C-alpha cells in the first residue's frame, strides 16, 4: 500500500516518493507462485502445440483455453461468488505478462480474460453472471468483444450495427457486421455493441448459437497467425432483453472503460513478449561467432542489449506502478456494496491516462526489442528457422489494436487538459510556477551525495518542460488545441516519457537499498541508460511542440527553457551500458 494515493496524471504536478510505488520486486510469495504457474503453462502447454496453433489447427486454441481454465488462469479478475479469485490488478498483470511469452495464444488469452470477460464482470447482472461467468472462468466457454466495424475502427462509436426491439418487447434483433474480432472463430459469448433505435449505443451479451449469428472466415494476417480473427455477422439475431449489458444508451461507458483495462493488460503482455524475444537475442549473441569470437563481445551488439534492457526495465516499472496505483484506489472502495462496480469503474477510469501510457510505451519497447533481435540475428533473423522472424511479425499488431498508438497518444494530453479545465488537476497553477522558474534562473540545489541526485534533479526539469510547453500550447490554441494533433502527439511523448522515467527512478530508489552491491550497480546502470534516452526524447519532442505552437520571443524563451530543463550529466553512460550488456549476456535473458 502506497504512502499516498495519487490521482490520475497527478505525477505531472506532484513528485512521488519511493514509498508511493509498487514494483515487480514487491510481489508476495503467492504472486510469484502464480507467475511460475503462468510460466509453466507457456512452457509445458503452449510451446508443444505452438506449430499446430500457428496453423490454426481446429480445437487447439479451445483446448488450451480449457487448460488455462483448469490452471485457474482465467479466474483472476472475477469475484469469488462466481468462482473467481478476486485478485488484485498487480497479480492480473503479472499473469498477463508471463502469458505474453505465449505468442498467439497470449492474444487469445488477453482477449478472453480482458475485453471478453470484464464487461460481464463489471456490468453484468447477477442473473447474467450466474448464466455465463462460471463458464468463462473455467474455459468451458471462450469470450470475444465485438466493437470494431468495417467503417468504425478508431471512430469506435461510429458503428452502424443496430438493435431493434421486437413487438412483444422480449427480444432485440441485432443487425450489422463486426470485424477483426479476436477469438471470433471459437468464442461462445460475444459482447456486442449496437445502437438501439439507431441512437442509443448499447452492449449485448450474445451467444454464439443464436440464430442469425454467423462467423466469417479467418483473416490472413501479418502476424499472430495462431490467434483467431474473424468477422461476426448479425442478421436479425434474436437476443433476449435480459441480455442487455448495463443500461440502454450507456454502451460507450462499457466500451471505453473496458478498453482502459485492455490497454493496461496489453502493456503487461507485451512486456512479457519483450522479455521472451530478448532471451533469444541474448542467447544468439553468445552463440554466434564471427571474426573468431562470439558477437556478444562486440560493442555494437552490447549496446543493443543494454538499450533493450533499460527499455524492458522501464516497461515493467510502468506496468506495476500503475497496477499499484489502481489497486490502492480500488482498495478504498467498500466491498459488497451495490455501487461497488460503479466505483470500481471510476477508480480505473481515473488512470485512463496511465493506461494509455502503458499501452503506447510498452508496445513500442516491444517493437524496439523485436527489431533489434532480428538485427542481432543478421541474415538468420530474416529466415523462419529462427524465432526472431515470428516475433517481428507478431509484434506489429500491438501498436494497432486496443486503440492505435496515435489514438492513445492523443488521449493523454487530451484527458490531461480536460481534467485541468474541470479543476481536477492544478495544471494552471503549476504551469505558472514553471513559467516563473523559466524566467528566474534558480540554481537547483542538489546534493550529489544522494543516490540518483542527477536523475532527481532532471526529473523536476522534465516536468517543468511539459508544463511550459503545454501552457504555451493552450495559450496559443485555447479550445482548438484538441484539433492540433501534431502538437498533441508531441506533448504526449513528453508526458509518456516523464511517467516512464519517473517510474524507473522510483523503482530504483525503492529497491536499491535491499540489493547486494553488484545488483545495485546494475540497477543504477539501468537508471542512467534509461534517463539519458528519456531526456533526449523529451527534449526533442518538447522542441517539436514548441516550434508547432510558438513563434518569436515566446519560442525563444521556450527553447531556452527546454535546453535548461533537459540538462542531464550522463557521465559513465558507456560503462553503464556495458555493465547491463554483461549482465544480460551472463544471464542470457533480461537480467532483472
Amino acid at each position, binding site marked *: 500500500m502506497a504512502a499516498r494515493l495519487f490521482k490520475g496524471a497527478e505525477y505531472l504536478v506532484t513528485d512521488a516518493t519511493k514509498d508511493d510505488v509498487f514494483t515487480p520486486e514487491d510481489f508476495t510469495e503467492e504472486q510469484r507462485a502464480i507467475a511460475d504457474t503462468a510460466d509453466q503453462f507457456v512452457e509445458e502447454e503452449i510451446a508443444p502445440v505452438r506449430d499446430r496453433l500457428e496453423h490454426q489447427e481446429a480445437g487447439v486454441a479451445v483446448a488450451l483455453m480449457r487448460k488455462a481454465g483448469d490452471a485457474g488462469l482465467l479466474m483472476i479478475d472475477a469475484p469469488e461468488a462466481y468462482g473467481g479469485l478476486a485478485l488484485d490488478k498487480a497479480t492480473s498483470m503479472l499473469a498477463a505478462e508471463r502469458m505474453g511469452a505465449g505468442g498467439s495464444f497470449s492474444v487469445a488469452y488477453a482477449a478472453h480474460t480482458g475485453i471478453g470477460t470484464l464487461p460481464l464482470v463489471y456490468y453484468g447482472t447477477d442473473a447474467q453472471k450466474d448464466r455465463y461467468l462460471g463458464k468463462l472462468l473455467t474455459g468451458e466457454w471462450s469470450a470475444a468483444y465485438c466493437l470494431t466495424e468495417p467503417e468504425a475502427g478508431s471512430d469506435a462509436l461510429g458503428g452502424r450495427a443496430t438493435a431493434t426491439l421486437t413487438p412483444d418487447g422480449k427480444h432485440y434483433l441485432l443487425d450489422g457486421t463486426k470485424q477483426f474480432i479476436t477469438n471470433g472463430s471459437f468464442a461462445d459469448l460475444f459482447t456486442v455493441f449496437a445502437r438501439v433505435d439507431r441512437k442509443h449505443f448499447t452492449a449485448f451479451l450474445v451467444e454464439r448459437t443464436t440464430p442469425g449469428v454467423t462467423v466469417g472466415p479467418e483473416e490472413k494476417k501479418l502476424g499472430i497467425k495462431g490467434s483467431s480473427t474473424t468477422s461476426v455477422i448479425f442478421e436479425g439475431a434474436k437476443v433476449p432483453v435480459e441480455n442487455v449489458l448495463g443500461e440502454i444508451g450507456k454502451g460507450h461507458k462499457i466500451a471505453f472503460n473496458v478498453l482502459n483495462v485492455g490497454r493496461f493488460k496489453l502493456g503487461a503482455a507485451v512486456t512479457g513478449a519483450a522479455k521472451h524475444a530478448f532471451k533469444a537475442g541474448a542467447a544468439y549473441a553468445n552463440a554466434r561467432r564471427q571474426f573468431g569470437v562470439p558477437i556478444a563481445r562486440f560493442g555494437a551488439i552490447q549496446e543493443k542489449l543494454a538499450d533493450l534492457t533499460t527499455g524492458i526495465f522501464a516497461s515493467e516499472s510502468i506496468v506495476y506502478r500503475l497496477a499499484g496505483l489502481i489497486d490502492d484506489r480500488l482498495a478504498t472502495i467498500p466491498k459488497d456494496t451495490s455501487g461497488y462496480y460503479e466505483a470500481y469503474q471510476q477508480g480505473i477510469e481515473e488512470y485512463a491516462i496511465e493506461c494509455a501510457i502503458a499501452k503506447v510505451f510498452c508496445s513500442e519497447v516491444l517493437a524496439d526489442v523485436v527489431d533489434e533481435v532480428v538485427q542481432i540475428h543478421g541474415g538468420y533473423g530474416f529466415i523462419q*528457422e529462427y524465432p526472431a522472424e515470428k516475433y517481428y511479425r507478431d509484434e506489429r499488431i500491438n501498436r494497432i489494436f486496443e486503440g492505435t498508438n496515435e489514438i492513445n497518444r492523443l488521449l493523454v494530453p487530451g484527458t490531461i487538459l480536460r481534467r485541468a479545465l474541470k479543476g481536477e488537476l492544478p495544471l494552471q497553477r503549476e504551469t505558472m510556477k514553471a513559467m516563473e522558474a523559466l524566467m528566474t534562473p534558480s540554481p537547483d540545489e542538489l546534493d550529489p551525495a544522494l543516490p540518483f541526485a542527477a536523475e532527481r534533479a532532471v526529473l523536476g526539469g522534465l516536468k517543468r518542460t511539459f508544463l511550459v510547453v503545454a501552457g504555451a500550447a493552450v495559450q496559443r490554441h485555447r479550445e482548438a488545441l484538441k484539433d492540433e494533433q501534431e502538437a498533441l502527439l508531441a506533448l504526449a511523448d513528453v508526458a509518456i516519457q516523464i511517467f516512464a522515467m519517473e517510474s524507473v527512478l522510483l523503482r530504483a530508489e525503492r529497491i536499491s537499498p535491499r540489493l547486494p552491491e553488484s545488483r545495485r550497480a546494475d540497477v543504477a546502470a539501468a537508471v542512467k541508460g534509461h534517463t539519458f534516452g528519456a531526456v533526449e526524447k523529451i527534449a526533442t519532442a518538447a522542441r517539436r511542440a514548441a516550434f508547432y505552437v510558438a513563434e518569436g520571443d515566446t519560442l525563444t524563451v521556450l527553447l531556452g527553457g527546454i535546453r535548461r530543463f533537459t540538462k542531464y550529466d550522463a557521465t559513465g553512460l558507456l560503462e553503464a551500458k556495458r555493465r547491463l550488456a554483461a549482465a544480460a549476456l551472463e544471464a542470457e535473458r533480461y537480467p532483472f
Partner: protein
Amino acid sequence: MSNVLVLAEQSRGTLRKATLSAVTAARELAHRTGGKVTALVLGCGAGAAADELAAHGVTVRLADAPALAHPLAEAHAPVVAEAAKVVGASWVVAPATAYGKDVLPRAAVALGAAVATEVLAIAGAGAEILLRRPMWAGNVIAEVELRTEVKAFTVRPTEFPPAGRAPGGSVAPLPVTVDAATLRTRWVGLEEVKSERPELTDARVVVAGGRGTKGDFGPITGLADVLGGAVGASRAAVDAGWAPNDWQVGQTGKVVAPELYVAAGISGAIQHVAGMKGAKVIVAVNKDADAPIFQIADYGLVADLFQALPELRDRVQGA
C-alpha cells in the same frame, strides 16, 4: 586398518565391467592409505563372476546364497556391511551404477559410514583422503572429506581405467546369514532394453550426417549401431529428403546433449550447432578443412566420411 572393500557387480554370473574401474580406484586409495583391497561378489551361482574378478589379481570374497539371487538392496546391503567388518575395511567402494548407488548407501548406514557419490578422483594420503566429485550437474567439482570411521563412495567408471588381468587373485566364500523368507522385497522381473536405437534426445552417443553424405546414411547408421547410439541429421540432409524429420538436430529440430556427438559431413552452420553444442565430446569428420564445425569440435578429422566412419566402426567392433 585401512583396508578397502570393493562391491562388485555381476549379473547371472557375468562380471559388470564397471567393477574393474572401482577396483582401480580402490587400489589407488589403498596405495594412499596403506591397506589391502578385497572385493565382494554377491549372488546365487555367481562363482564365474568371482573367478573372472580374481583373474584381475583381486582377492575376492563370494557371498553365494539363494537370498542374494537378485540385486535387492534389502538383501545385499547387510551382507556388504558384514563383509566390511570381516575384512576390516575402513573404506567401501562401489561402481556408480544403478546397483552400486542403490546398495552402498543402505550398507553405509549399518557401518555408520558417510558416503560420496560419483567420485571422479582421489587426492591426499593417509588419514587425509579427499575425494573429488561433481555437484550441480557437474557445473562445480567439490573436494570432500568424509569424517566417519568407516567411509564409502561410488566411483564414476569412466574416470578410472578398468583393472587389467593379473595373477595373484583368489576366491574365498563369505558365509551369508540373510534369509530369503524374511525379505520384504520381492523381485518380479527385468525387462532388458531392446537393442533398437535409443531416442535421439537421451542417447549417450549420437552420430549425425549432413550434406556430405550425399544421401547415403549407411556409414552414419553403421557407426551409430556399433556404438549403441542414435542417428541425427542436419537440416540440409532432412530438407534433401535423405533423413526423416525426426532425425533433425538443431534450432528447429531436436536439442541433444550426448556424451559423444559425431558430426560427419556437416559443415556446422549455427542452427545445427544450436542443437548439439551441449554434447560432452564433439567429433567432426569433414572433407572441407575450413568447415566451421572444426571450430567447436574437440576432435577434428579432415577426411572422407565414407572411408573414416567405416574404419572407426571396425575399430569399435574390434575393441
